[in-house]
């Protein structure tokens, strides 16, 4: 097994033996399950658009709680020094933590897939927005986790790491609001930085490479910065 595999096993073990994962998972599934049932019975419309937007908000709020431990805990327990003096590249350490957190979030999204199954059993949903919505949530999760990894690499205080990640995510969410105050072409730049702007097109069933590129580029940039922080230690 490669160093990445060994690190990933350790991170998955740490993730799934931590109460944080189960607390976050329970909150996520309870709230989305409640909302799904309520909207289905009230509207009797076979789509998940509302649920996807709620999942978007929940991920923005909950992912910092998942990622705050990533490096902050390693620093606090003095284990980061062990990892950084072991014969592994810093990028593997970052990727292992990223993939472990992503596994948990994707697991939650897969469990929420039962809502789509229910719609398929009792109705005829339009599948394009559902596929697009899940793809958007997966890409959103990548970006939020990468941001959380970065802020966690900067401090040994988990609360500081979580609140900074939340702040950055919220700033990205509302980035387009600043467009009204800025002259061209800066207004276009901030509009294109908007987290929600690139999300809603997916949920409406339209897939644009530019939207996927936004999430992928920012995720890679955040992971790159995290690796740089570790390398510069």
């Amino acid at each position, binding site marked *: *097994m490669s160093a990445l595999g060994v690190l990933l096993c*350790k991170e998955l073990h740490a993730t799934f033996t931590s109460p944080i994962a189960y607390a976050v998972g329970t909150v996520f599934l309870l709230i989305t399950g409640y909302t799904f049932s309520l909207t289905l019975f009230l509207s009797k419309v076979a789509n998940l658009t509302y649920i996807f937007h709620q999942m978007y908000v929940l991920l923005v709020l909950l992912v910092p709680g998942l990622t705050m431990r990533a490096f902050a805990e390693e620093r606090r327990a*003095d*284990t980061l*020094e*062990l990892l950084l*003096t072991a*014969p592994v590249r810093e990028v593997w350490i970052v990727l292992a933590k990223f993939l472990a957190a992503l596994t948990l979030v994707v697991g939650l999204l897969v469990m929420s897939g039962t809502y789509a199954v229910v719609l398929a059993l009792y109705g005829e949903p339009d599948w394009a927005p559902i596929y697009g919505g899940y793809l958007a949530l997966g890409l959103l999760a990548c970006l939020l986790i990468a941001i959380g990894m970065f802020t966690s690499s900067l401090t040994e205080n988990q609360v500081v790491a979580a609140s900074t990640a939340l702040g950055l995510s919220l700033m990205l969410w509302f980035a387009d609001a600043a467009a009204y105050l800025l002259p061209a072409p800066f207004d276009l730049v901030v509009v294109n930085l908007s987290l929600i702007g690139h999300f809603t097109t997916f949920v409406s069933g339209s897939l644009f490479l530019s939207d996927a590129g936004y999430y992928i580029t920012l995720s890679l940039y955040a992971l790159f910065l995290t690796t740089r922080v570790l390398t510069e230690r």
Partner: protein
Amino acid sequence: MGLIRALAAELGPYGIRANMVMPGFMDTERRYPEWYLEFHDSPRGSSEHVKGIPLEARRKVGYVPEALPWYTHMRVSEFLTFMGRLRGLSPETTAMAIEAVSARVHLQDVFTAPIHTLSRGYRQRVAIAQALVHTPDILILDEPTNGLDPRQIIETRNLIRALAGTCTIIMSSHILSEVERTAERVAILLRGQLLGVRALADTPDLEALFLSLT
């Protein structure tokens, strides 16, 4: 003259800023050219696995940090397995190495215990065991007797001396008496600068040498 199979210690005022010194030894020949060259020229420490290949150099080094590291979710056996596998050992080799190293540092009694339940003395042994599991050429110990009670200090000192025959041990300490009892050679550093390297056999008064150099 190589450092391999010798026993060295480094000294300095205010704890020698060991955090800077220790990782620095592994990847910065510029910072410690004299030590680097000795390792470079030594029979087992051939240049190929040090110069320009930090990962390969790290593979040859075992490191015991001053602050004892531990994962709350791991047992002793799991932690040692993780560290062995992380350093590229196969599962079979890791299992054999862990068995050997546990016997060597007397960890068999707590082999399946969660690390967070162990005393500081046992955690020190676990930290040393993880650094030995891949049979390093160089073992680096950062303030290994800090925070230990007198019995644990004696046991740790004996353990270090027993290990000296199998690999080079570089130990940082600001306790002169401990260095005199443990080491064969001493290097004195001040703010990352190497001020001198002496054999303790040629140094009748370590305190006087220390004061004269710093």
